[in-house]
């Protein structure tokens, strides 16, 4: 086990997959000569050349489409969109083409396409650089959507995504590229489906993903220390398809659930998880599930306002106490 940063883990996955398969290539804005906005492709240009590490013009929709077309002929493109906000421009190629080609062709054409996007709210980047768009991607049939919370998952999910025959969107996080964590030395893969229990517990389940896993873990520590509440933290990790059985299994054990999401509440991960709880295990619950989520506003620039818009561990603690009446 070596400790490495999130960006280094992503770089390692690129490097391993590109070394193995000459049809794997990376493309995106500033990923080549400049090494990538978050360094996640640094050094690859020198190693693999400009045919496989491609600096693109600022044309999100069309370079996404070029990746999709190449994938349809058996290439394994990894397309980086500089910020998730810009992926709106690529939505046509992503949802009308990548997500639907396998289905529309009656299963005759495959689209092993990978899109990596840094998402989330970082530090005072303003409303147009602070989107959390998981709700959009997870609403598209035919896509897979995964969200690494740790360097280990950042590496393992990208490797699995490259090998997967379906289109996969990986939502990373702008504030997590320097996060450190253990990553196995030997080659490994992280499943594109299923939840991961980050902390077992018995009193309540905190469902989280990506950066909110860290808020949930922090909250769980405080709940244990200050209130004697034993919280289970479940990393949803795969937002599409979602692991209904895994979600229900934890809720059946703890009988209480709080969903922690960085995104605004409407039509989001929280609403989906709570719908699943209703459908799968309503009568196992001792209380109505709660959501901890961002305010339903564009993210403000001012530092204090920005903080106020995004949830945190303290809000998770409050929600759990409310749920348990403690």
């Amino acid at each position, binding site marked *: 086990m070596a400790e490495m940063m999130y960006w280094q883990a992503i770089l390692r996955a690129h490097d391993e997959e590109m070394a193995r398969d*000459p*049809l794997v*290539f990376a493309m995106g804005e500033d990923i080549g000569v400049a090494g990538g906005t978050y360094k996640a492709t640094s050094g690859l240009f020198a190693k693999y050349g400009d*045919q*496989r590490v*491609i600096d*693109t*013009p600022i*044309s999100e*929709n*069309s*370079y*996404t*489409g*070029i*990746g*999709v*077309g*190449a*994938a*349809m*002929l*058996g*290439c394994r493109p990894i397309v980086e969109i500089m910020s998730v906000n810009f992926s709106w421009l690529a939505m*046509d*190629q992503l949802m*009308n*083409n990548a997500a639907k*080609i*396998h*289905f*529309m*062709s*009656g*299963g*005759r*054409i*495959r689209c092993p396409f990978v899109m990596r996007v840094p998402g989330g709210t970082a530090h005072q980047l303003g409303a147009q650089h602070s989107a959390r768009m998981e709700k959009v991607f997870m609403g598209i*049939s*035919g896509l*897979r959507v995964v969200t690494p919370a740790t360097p280990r998952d950042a590496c393992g999910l990208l*490797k*699995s995504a490259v*090998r*997967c*025959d*379906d289109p996969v969107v990986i939502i990373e996080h702008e504030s997590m590229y320097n996060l450190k964590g253990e990553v196995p030395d030997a080659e490994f*893969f*992280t*499943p*594109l*489906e299923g939840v991961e229990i980050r902390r077992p517990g018995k009193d309540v389940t905190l469902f989280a993903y990506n950066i909110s896993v860290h808020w949930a873990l922090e909250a769980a520590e405080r709940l244990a220390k200050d209130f004697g509440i034993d919280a289970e933290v479940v990393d949803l990790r795969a937002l599409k398809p979602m692991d209904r059985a895994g979600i229900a299994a934890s809720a059946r054990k703890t009988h209480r659930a709080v969903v922690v999401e960085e995104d605004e509440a409407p039509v989001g991960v929280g609403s989906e998880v709570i719908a699943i709880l209703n459908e799968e295990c309503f009568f196992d619950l001792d209380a109505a599930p709660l959501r901890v989520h961002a305010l339903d506003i564009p993210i403000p620039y001012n530092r204090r306002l920005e903080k106020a818009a995004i949830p945190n561990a303290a809000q998770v603690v409050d929600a759990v106490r409310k749920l348990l009446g403690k």
Partner: protein
Amino acid sequence: MDASDQKRLLREMLFARRFEERCAEAYHERQIGGFLHLYPGEEACAIGVLEMARPGSDYVVTGYRDHIHALKSGMDPKALMAELFGKETGCSKGRGGSMHLFDPDVHFMGGYALVGGPFPLAAGFAKAIQMRGGDEIAICFLGDGANNQGTFHETMNMASLWKLPVLFVCENNLYGIGTAIERATVEINQYKRVAPYKIAAAQCDGQDIDVVMQHAEAAVRHVREKREPYFLELMTYRLRGHSMSDSGAYRRKEEVDEWAQRDPIGIYKARLQGQGLISDAEFQAMDKAIQQEIEEEIVRFAVESPEPRLEDVARYVYVEGGCAPWQK
């Protein structure tokens, strides 16, 4: 090109015409649903260009008016008609419909409904060809209206920048649905619009298949040998409405009549007759045989084919048993 090839081309164009007319009938009988965009009047474009390429080997992509591109690429007309009828034996197993024909076996990579959507896909095929090596090319057929999409400009820029072996064929039929080209576009000569991207381009008559083939040969050779894009604009006209729901009220009758005089089948038939290659009687016999084949083999196959099974409704969303190392 010898006499038998010339007769074959005439037959292919006539087959395309009769096939589309039969589709219209089936649509009125409600055997075909959804949107149906037919190709009469434009046959020389797809057939002429692909005659000069390597159908089945080169990768072809187009929009929603895709039947004839698929056929000329080598798709089985029975699988095409069955698709239009929504049957399991269709080229897309009844999941695609008229606008979404696919046949990867003959490198027909699809019909797409979003105007301008296939531009980058075609460049992506060319990128894949470039990475794998080989001398295939990608060929993208789209309309004049599609050139006002961002994907047109973005893709031309990247295709030229990265020297992608892709031939863009613009079927300029002077209208995007009911909007005449000059009401939507400043530069109506489409081939001039790629000049800033330094892509070689030409414009020619799209109604005379000999002219189309002559220009297509040069275009295909350019892309295949130089391994860089080319843009070919074909001036054409659709003799029917945009789709089955189009009354065509936006076009003057004189204009339609004028173009009807330039029907690609009429032009080519007259030429072959002038050369003494085909008599009226032979042409009639050819026509009859085509209609018989369409009725007795193709439509019949579509009618008799089974519907997809309801229990399969959710298949093909994800690849079944797709390589998933995490499952091993």
